[in-house]
């Protein structure tokens, strides 16, 4: 399936400073829990502990599925669909 994956709020620094990733995942179906591992293995460039912690995203990262908070979509159990737009955003604190 084809997915649009975006990292922002500074998180892109872990992914070769690239925000937008258009990827082909060679699976018929995949839940978000497993997609996180796929991202770690295929997109993440450095310091995995700043992206994942205990099988999920580390605290302070918000996950959006088609502009919705992933908590509304089932969280880690969400079944990813073809053409989904996923956003991983690091919360900002500056002012």
């Amino acid at each position, binding site marked *: 399936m084809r997915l649009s994956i975006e990292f922002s*709020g500074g998180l892109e620094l872990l992914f070769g400073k690239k925000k937008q990733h258009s990827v082909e995942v060679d699976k018929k179906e995949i839940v978000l829990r497993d997609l996180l591992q796929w991202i770690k293995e295929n997109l993440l460039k450095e310091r995995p502990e*700043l992206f994942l912690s205990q099988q999920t995203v580390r*605290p302070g990262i918000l996950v959006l599925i088609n502009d919705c*908070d992933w908590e509304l979509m089932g969280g880690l159990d969400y079944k990813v669909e073809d053409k989904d737009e996923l956003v991983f955003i690091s*919360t*900002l*604190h500056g*002012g």
Partner: protein
Amino acid sequence: DSSSVDTLNNAEISRYGRQLIMPEIGMQGQKKIKKSSVLIIGAGGLGSPVSLYLAGAGIGRIGILDFDTVEASNLHRQVIHKESSVGIPKAISAGRAIREFNSLVKVEEHVTAFTTDNALGLVSRYDIIVDATDNVATRYLINDACVLSNKPLVSAAALRMDGQVTVYHHNGGPCYRCLYPSPPPAETVTDCSNGGVLGVVPGIVGCIQALEVIKIAAGTGESMSQKLLLFDGMSPRYTMVKLRPRNKECAVCGDSPSVTGLIDYKSFCGSSYDDKPCTRSIL
């Protein structure tokens, strides 16, 4: 009678006339704005536009809290201050600017840090709270103080070319802890001093924050409760995201809260909330 909070005098009617004639505000909305009080925590990049536009709109009483003094390197984004204010406490400098801009508004300067000792006392004295700070621990402290005092919290943040705005603990929506039950690892936290910020980005985000305050005060429009605005200045892109509802298990706003009073946010976040974050931070 110019001292009455329930009516508008002639000076006010003439001054706010352009707002009054809008059906979305009207005389009733303007009276509600006048009766409202707002505490702005932070007189920096976000607090500058928030203070100016809330004063312009006629919010009756504005508290402005900041412990820092104005530095020249702040001025690229902190447009309420002037070069002659360098070295002066930001709250004093901002208060002076507000008075010169709108003498009909009551201003209260708080030259102090926002701490577990003064948080509940300060928050209780205002109707709406604005988080215009720049560090994680203070954001948890402000959130908990607002939930415990049952006040709506209009929150924003900016870094580099990005901004975020939302409204917490309002209309039954989520609080900061509902979204972020655990604080981020200290090494992932960057502030404007270390990460940099284009000055007009907190300008945009702070104005959006002021709009949310005014809508809540006037009782008009839809608030950003349970919504998050993500702003990317480079693209430029504005994305409005739908957030989770209030979490019944939330430690502070849940049905059986474990946090029933303020805690030690410094150790909770593993960082000091008046220190600048460490320099090796990257995110």
